[in-house]
């Protein structure tokens, strides 16, 4: 089939779904709405598969399908088309978005069927996928930005989906405004790059990328990439802009799975990977990315340990895992970052949907202290969640192991990495294993703490089928990226993913050959740390449940600080938001009302006074007028005479 038609169908199918459900927003027939929406995404998925296979059919160095629809904006030298292209990187992304997207839409159909606004929900969800596809496929930074803001908008709408609840509406607003901070930086990044390269076309920029690294902090490229990275911290919830993501859990759970785990929040990583030729040439930016990523991973994991809300745990886990991905791209391991993006999309979407299934069964209860022992009521949810758990904590041969190990190894081995980065990563991995095991224990294992009034039950097939598919992917998903050191040992298993990505990823400069013994050693260490943490957590929360409370009590101030999320929200309110509102009130009161307006009154009074003077001249007395004329004549004549 013609590429442009394929591309158009891929992009427009979700949009048409949005329009159909958008027009019939009042009807609450969940089967039809969900069916339309799921079908729309599934059509896109088929197009994605077709495009992917087209790409595979092309020679390795020409794997690129570019389609231009029309000229969008054209002012002087600034030219941006409504054009899109699929290459090795974006092909993976569209498969994830539409594939996982289809499953989540399917899940939603059942999950949302009680809701009055189900049709509106599916309209938003389709609109989201449409924007996400634009973000991923856009051939210029500006087209990417269209999707970038578009997904933010849909995220806003879906977080605040139950808008009659003030807090949920506020969470949506917080997400949008925090993202806008990043978007403002993204704009500046675009301006810098446009000033440098004279274009915003991604392929042209990549082709013009310098061959020598820019070492200056204030260099144009460094500033440009730094701004773009700040944009990424907004969308991908990194320090300092991550604060919106935990609140975003106010939205329906499938939304958290699709937008706040699998797709939208990975946009920042995707953007950096897509622009990897320029990012790799700005080592200063890369350093900042790696540090921010590592710190975010650690900080979010530590908060995850203390949370009681099942979705909050997963949310902080997502922030932490995104931190891993940034750590990866920060040390130049773009492939590893993308790899983890993919496996994370599988297992985290799985776990979010699993938590949705649990919440559904528990009648909207999200507190894990009121769960426990759900294993016997919800076997499918439990076993699929179990597979997600082993995947995320990095037990071989499950998906998360390969991608996480690749990141840890590269953060140690890459010349842009550092043993400290590895250590932070390994520590976070340990914490991840701990809090995820804690979550498993408190939710599914141990004694049941379920209130008598609640009767948990397994979810229907429409919800369990997506869980099963994602569980399978969480198991096998990592096998396409088996590292050389393992593949070699078990008889020449190729690393398909790295071979596929090879032509579009710039290699890390000065990367030396790895010592296999070291790689094995580090791998063993990280698996060891994860297993021990998991074991401790199991011991704490199933065997002797009184221990965690004791520990928490003995370090109460620290525990409180972590439990309250390091008080970052409070800090932002205290240092930025409240002072800003206070300032606004003050400037309005003192500048507008009491200064400018006061001056106006003074001037008005002066004019009135002046008017008084002239008015007194106009007495209506003809004789006085005659005198004015006489004086005028005298003055005029004397001027003429003197001249």
């Amino acid at each position, binding site marked *: 089939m013609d590429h442009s038609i394929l591309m158009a169908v891929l992009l427009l199918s979700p949009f048409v779904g949005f329009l159909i459900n958008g027009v019939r*927003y*009042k009807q609450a027939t969940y089967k039809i709405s969900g069916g339309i929406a799921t079908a729309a995404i599934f059509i896109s998925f088929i197009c994605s598969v077709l495009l992917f296979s087209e790409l595979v059919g092309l020679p390795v160095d020409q794997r690129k399908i570019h389609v231009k629809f*029309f*000229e*969008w*904006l*054209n*002012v*002087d030298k*600034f030219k941006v088309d409504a054009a899109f292209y699929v290459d090795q990187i974006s092909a993976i992304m569209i498969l994830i978005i539409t594939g996982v997207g289809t499953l989540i839409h399917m899940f939603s159909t059942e999950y949302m069927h009680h809701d009055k606004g189900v049709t509106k929900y599916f309209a938003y969800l389709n609109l989201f996928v449409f924007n996400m596809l634009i973000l991923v496929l856009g051939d210029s930074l*500006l087209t990417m*930005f*269209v999707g970038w*803001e*578009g997904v933010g*908008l849909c995220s*806003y709408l879906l977080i*605040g989906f139950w*808008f*009659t*609840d*003030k807090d949920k*509406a*506020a969470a949506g*607003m917080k997400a*949008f*405004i925090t993202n*806008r*901070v990043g*978007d*403002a*930086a993204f*704009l*500046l990044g675009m*301006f*810098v790059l*446009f*000033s440098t390269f004279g274009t915003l076309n991604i392929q042209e920029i990549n082709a013009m990328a310098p061959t020598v690294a820019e070492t200056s902090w204030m260099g144009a490229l460094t500033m440009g990439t730094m701004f773009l990275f700040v944009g990424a911290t907004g969308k991908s919830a990194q320090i300092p802009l991550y604060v919106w993501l935990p609140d975003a859990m106010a939205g329906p759970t499938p939304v958290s799975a699709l937008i706040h785990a699998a797709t939208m929040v990975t946009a920042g990583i995707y953007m950096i990977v897509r622009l990897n030729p320029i990012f790799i040439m700005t080592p200063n930016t890369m350093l900042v990315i790696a540090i921010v990523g590592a710190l975010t991973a650690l900080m979010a994991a530590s908060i995850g340990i203390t949370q009681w809300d099942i979705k909050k745990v997963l949310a902080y886990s997502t922030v932490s895992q995104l931190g891993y991905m940034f750590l990866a791209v920060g040390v130049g391991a773009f492939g590893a970052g993308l790899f983890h993006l993919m496996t994370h999309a599988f297992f985290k979407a799985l776990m979010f949907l699993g938590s949705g299934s649990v919440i559904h069964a528990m009648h909207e209860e999200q507190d894990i202290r009121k769960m426990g022992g759900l294993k016997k009521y919800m076997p499918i949810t439990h076993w699929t969640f179990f597979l997600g758990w082993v995947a995320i904590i990095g037990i071989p041969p499950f998906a998360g192991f390969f991608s996480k190990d690749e990141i840890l190894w590269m953060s140690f081995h890459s010349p842009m990495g550092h043993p400290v980065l590895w250590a932070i990563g390994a520590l976070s991995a340990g914490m991840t294993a701990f809090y995820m095991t804690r979550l498993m224990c408190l939710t599914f294992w141990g004694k049941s703490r379920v209130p008598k009034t609640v009767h948990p039950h397994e979810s229907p097939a429409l919800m369990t089928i997506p869980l099963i598919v994602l569980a399978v992917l969480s198991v096998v998903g990592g096998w396409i990226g088996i590292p050389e050191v393992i593949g070699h040992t078990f008889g020449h298993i190729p690393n398909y993913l790295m071979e596929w990505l090879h032509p579009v990823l710039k290699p890390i400069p000065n990367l030396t050959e790895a010592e296999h013994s070291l790689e094995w050693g580090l791998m063993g260490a990280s698996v060891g740390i994860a297993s021990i943490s998991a074991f401790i957590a199991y011991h704490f929360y199933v065997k002797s449940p009184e221990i965690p409370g004791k520990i928490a009590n003995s370090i109460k101030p620290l525990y409180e600080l972590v439990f309250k999320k390091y008080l970052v929200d409070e800090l932002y309110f205290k240092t930025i938001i409240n002072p*800003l*509102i206070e*300032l*606004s*009130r003050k*400037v*309005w009161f003192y*500048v*507008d009302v009491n200064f*400018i*307006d006061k001056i*106006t009154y003074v*001037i*008005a009074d002066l*004019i009135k006074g002046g008017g008084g003077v002239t008015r007194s001249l106009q007495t209506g007395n003809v004789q006085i007028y005659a005198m004015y004329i006489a004086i005028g004549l005298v003055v005029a004549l004397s001027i003429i005479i003197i001249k």
Partner: protein
Amino acid sequence: MLLSTVILLPLVFAVFIAFWPQQRTLRHLALGFSLIEFLISLMILNEFDPGSARLQLVEKFTWIERFGIQYFVGIDGISLWLVLLTTFLTPIIILASWTSIDTKVKGFHSCLFLLQTAMIGTFLSMDAILFYVFWELSLIPMYFMVGIWGGARRIYATIKFFIFTMAGSVLMLVAIIYMMYLTQQATGVMSSSLLEFYKVKIPFVAGTFMNQQTLLFFAFSLAFAIKVPIWPVHTWLPDAHVEAPTPGSVILAGVMLKMGTYCFLRWVIPLFPDATEYWSWLFLSLGVIGIIYGALVAMIQPDIKKLVAYSSVSHMGYIILGLFVMNQYGITGAIYQMLNHGVSTGALFLLIGMIYERTHSREISKYGGLASVLPIFTIFFFIITLSSIAVPLTNGFIGEYLILLGTFKAAPVYAYFAVTGVVLGAAYMLWMFKRVFFGEKGELVKDDHHPLHDLNLREIVVMAPLLILVFWMGLLPNHFLNWTKSSVDHLVNNKNKYYLEIHENKVAKGSEYAN
């Protein structure tokens, strides 16, 4: 005769309506007239040559020979869309005021048409005195509109409005006369033609006030700055908006503010290039201050209309920024933003008017939960909100993006400050949106015995063209920008020796120039 028809036909309508005996058919008649006017103005597109930077469809007649004053009108890419914006908004305004204006209906529509003549005349005049007449003429109907059909503090607002704008205009009149005198010195013939003005080289000394070009520059700029309004001469605007009836607010925000920004482009920048360049830092700073100040103050307004009024100060700050960076991106963006602001802020005022008709309150704290009661109204308001905060694929994004890009290319430091407006804009609009539409039902919304009714067909028809434009202008900006391109290029490329030639083959028949 096309331009003169477009300018003067509303005047004829105004008179006609003043003498129309029937009350019942008055609104229909006015709507019909305004549609006729709109269709005629569309014919300009037919005659206009977008590839030319020259002054087109020129008509020129001697008015006062002794002083070289002429009736001289013409159009180019800079004024084209503003004229169409004016004629486009008028029928919408008439339809929107169908039920909200119920006293002195005849006078209201006469005022409206008189105002239309004045505004279009301002955009099309190429003679300084003629321009001044139209410029001042626009004040009078607006004065009445606020003073007669306005809110409780309307007299205060009208006086403030009048004092501010008159203060600027008087200085401008002096400056115009002085320009005529300078023209006479330079060419030997007195003239008030703008084209003659352009030919005069006005002496300029950098760093001092007391030189001809700087003084003239400030005399003109002050008049326009008040109209825009630029911070700190903006305080008349929120009061005027709050007290004005909905149609008045729409015209004020939609068109009249653009008279100020347009005149910077038509008069100040080409006439006083050295002073413009030298003092651009001042206007860039004021633009940035306006963006941030307007946004901050908008954030804490308790009255929804005042909030939108302050958001106008912020948006107009962007336009000033775009004008004074003096490159294609900035000026194109500024022109586009003028249209965007006309569409989106006009639409916001219309929507506020619609809800005011239902509840008789604009107090944000009394609302809440509107989204669950008025779905269509909510969707419309949300789309316009998106346009106002410049989300991509809406019109607002194109304008704001081009302005920021142009600013960054010319003077990055201003761009760094101006992008904070991107965040603050989202903050004040979404915060307001949350308080009005989300959460539990507020005081004005929860009365179940008198439920609020969603938009009726008339109101949907009023909003539809604006909503279409939001996406049309956001998705296909080239449809609009291609018409302004030549003129903007011409201005930017000749900014130090600007001239405007008359497009020969499009000269209207019967005018002096053709002979």
